């Protein structure tokens, strides 16, 4: 019983697109006619995305060394995003799926039209469009709905950042680490998505009894992680232990920043935060309120 994709306008004017496990919140800013065209463009592109991905799903879940290159536009974005990380880490294209979908829909919105700003938020993985002189302020909320931001970054059109992504053990995707949330700013949403996954995996205390793990295939027979043990619960950790785990994650984030793959990252375990990169720390500050919507939304975009 295939339920068709859904679109609807939220009360505040944003659009919500839904299909199977995908939920997108999108918004465009500019002339009314351009905004409406952008929404129509997003819907037109979105309608077939899940089917396209599913057609190549086994390929996208496989180790790219053993598989030929995918053909779909989103799938190619996924493969390209994980490629630069793969020299040092195991990663399948699925690590970038959420960011790649966001990017693809954003491109459909912006191509051939003049928009001041636009974003596509795919469950916390966000693709941004900024015309010259425009900015987005991005709050990182690791306690959804609570008006306490652990960090706030302003992304300027002059910055390289056009993607934001978050990963952690409690999210819908599996994580090998103990991070509650790792948020990454990068040049694209798909690269941010892949990097967030790797950095969240690195935030860890190997062998610690409070971090409970189960082979991924026992939870999901089709998981691309196979026998790899994924985190299913994180018990109490001491401050020192959290600092040790964060230090490993920070080292991973710095590795990718040194290679120019990410701009900045904010890492969170319990009440403790680790920060990497000027774009976060330069703009970091407390902001008074949070704009928040959506189940997994760890970001506020305005």
């Amino acid at each position: 019983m295939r339920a068709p994709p859904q679109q609807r306008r939220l009360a505040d004017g944003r659009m919500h697109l839904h299909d199977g496990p995908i939920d997108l919140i999108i918004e465009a800013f500019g002339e009314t006619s351009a905004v409406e065209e952008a929404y129509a463009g997003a819907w037109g592109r979105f309608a077939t995305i899940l089917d396209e991905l599913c057609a190549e799903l086994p390929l996208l879940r496989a180790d790219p060394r053993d598989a030929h290159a995918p053909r779909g536009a989103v799938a190619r974005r996924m493969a390209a995003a994980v490629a630069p990380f793969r020299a040092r880490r195991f990663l399948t294209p699925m690590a970038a799926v959420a960011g790649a979908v966001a990017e693809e829909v954003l491109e459909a919105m912006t191509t051939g039209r003049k928009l001041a700003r636009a974003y596509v938020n795919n469950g916390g993985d966000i693709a941004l469009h900024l015309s010259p002189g425009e900015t987005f302020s991005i709050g990182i909320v690791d306690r959804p709905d609570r008006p306490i931001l652990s960090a706030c970054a302003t992304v300027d059109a002059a910055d390289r950042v056009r993607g934001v992504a978050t990963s952690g053990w409690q999210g819908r995707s599996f994580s090998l680490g103990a991070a509650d949330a790792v948020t990454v700013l990068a040049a694209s949403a798909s690269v941010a998505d892949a990097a967030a996954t790797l950095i969240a995996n690195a935030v860890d205390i190997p062998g610690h009894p409070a971090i409970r793990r189960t082979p991924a295939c026992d939870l999901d027979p089709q998981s691309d992680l196979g026998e790899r043990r994924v985190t299913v619960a994180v018990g109490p950790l001491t401050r020192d232990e959290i600092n040790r785990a964060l230090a490993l994650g920070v080292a991973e984030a710095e590795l990718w920043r040194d290679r120019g793959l990410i701009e900045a990252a904010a890492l969170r375990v319990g009440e403790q935060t680790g920060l990497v990169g000027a774009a976060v720390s330069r703009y970091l500050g407390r902001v008074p309120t949070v704009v928040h919507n959506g189940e997994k939304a760890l970001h506020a975009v305005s």
Partner: protein
Amino acid sequence: MSEVGDKIRCDACPVLCYIRPGMTGACDRYANRDGQLVRVDPHVLLDRALSEGGKVVPFVNAEAAWSGDILRRPGPLVTAVGAGTTYPDYKPAPFIVSSKVDGVDMVTVVTEGIYSYCGVKLKIDTDRHLGAECAIVRAEGEPVGHVTTGEYGSQMLSLGGVNHLTHGGKKEGRVTCDTLLNLCNGKPVELVVDGGATVIVQAGKAPIINGKLEERMRVGCGSATIGMFAKQWGDKVDEVVVVDDHITGVLSEHQAGKLLGMRDTGIRMKGRRSTPGRYFHVAEPGTGWGGTNVSDPLDIIAGFNPKVARSGMTMLMVSTTGEQHAFFRLGEDLRPIEAELPEALRESVERISENCEPALCSVLFMAGAGGSLRAGVTENPVRLTRSVRQALTTVTAGGAPVTVWPGGGITFMVDVTLLPENSFGYVPTPAIVAPIEFTLRLDDYAALGGHVDEVRPLEEVVAEHAQRPNAIFSNGVVARSVGARRKA
């Protein structure tokens, strides 16, 4: 859906997840339960007859003529348990059912609500001090609610609400959600009150306070107990003190004792005298005698006036449940010395116990349906609210009657023991998922902008479900009478 080993393949979307037993697919909306593809909650058609006994309804033979008077007459009721959420909201609720009754079409709009604004009101029958008013109530160390008012023979707790669900820490939200879910589904939950007691609560069961099962609810306050039993004491004992943290009663000073011609005993109580024979604050609140912190009842007596008291005088001290009692005789120095309780008084103590009702925990789920779920019912949500206000639309939760609060929105409360088993679910937002049904006349439904095109006759829904029993009655779940839950 197809099976591969113990896994099943979900066909709800093109991801076509293989799902292991006990797990959900990528969307968290469909699950494998014992080899069957199910929504997380079973879909339940209820016989809404309020009779006892858990009678199973033969769906295929369900009477075609459905009583329109949903709350008062027997007949099948389609409930929203496991109806499937209608997210995004504008999709018509999955079951909009009509049936002709006396020429008037009735519609039940069946949906599951996702409530970020919800909680439970807990009434715990006990005299014991659970904690100070406003004290934080914790589960797994996380704040999930607070102590609110003391009521007659019971203590109220308020748990959940949007502030704990979403404004606290991530763990606070998750633990609050778990706590609400377990309480609503009739499971036991351990709660710890800051500076107070540890209590295990379960809907419809006696509370366990600091490891001790609370068996009885007090017969009345100390003063009321004096009033009720004065006649049985008047000629058998010189003094009776009913120990109660709220209002301790002293028979010889009390109006009831005076009327029986009882003489002064010269007793001097601690605490503050309110009116004759009624004392406030004789000790600190606690889990000892009558909800005080005393384990030796003599601690609440300051002494006896030597000008009035005489040696050999007798005194009964008893708590408001009769659970604790002691008998004393004054010695030469006018100090009370414990003695064996005379048979004649034992009876009166037992009668206090006998007159106590069993102590129970009651759980009312409270939630606001004023938000977007109304969009599944009508294209013009505020009209639904108005229609409920005007009593044109009846609201039920899993077939159970609800109390709708006056004022804005559709904020309701329902006794969780009246819903079918495991009617409540959750989403990791976090929020509680609970069934809700709106029943109204078809013409009223059309007038308020309802999804009239989606209305289906009851017979069709019943017949369809009879053909697909696994989709509805997964795991052998069958419809039960409303109110039959947990009464066996």
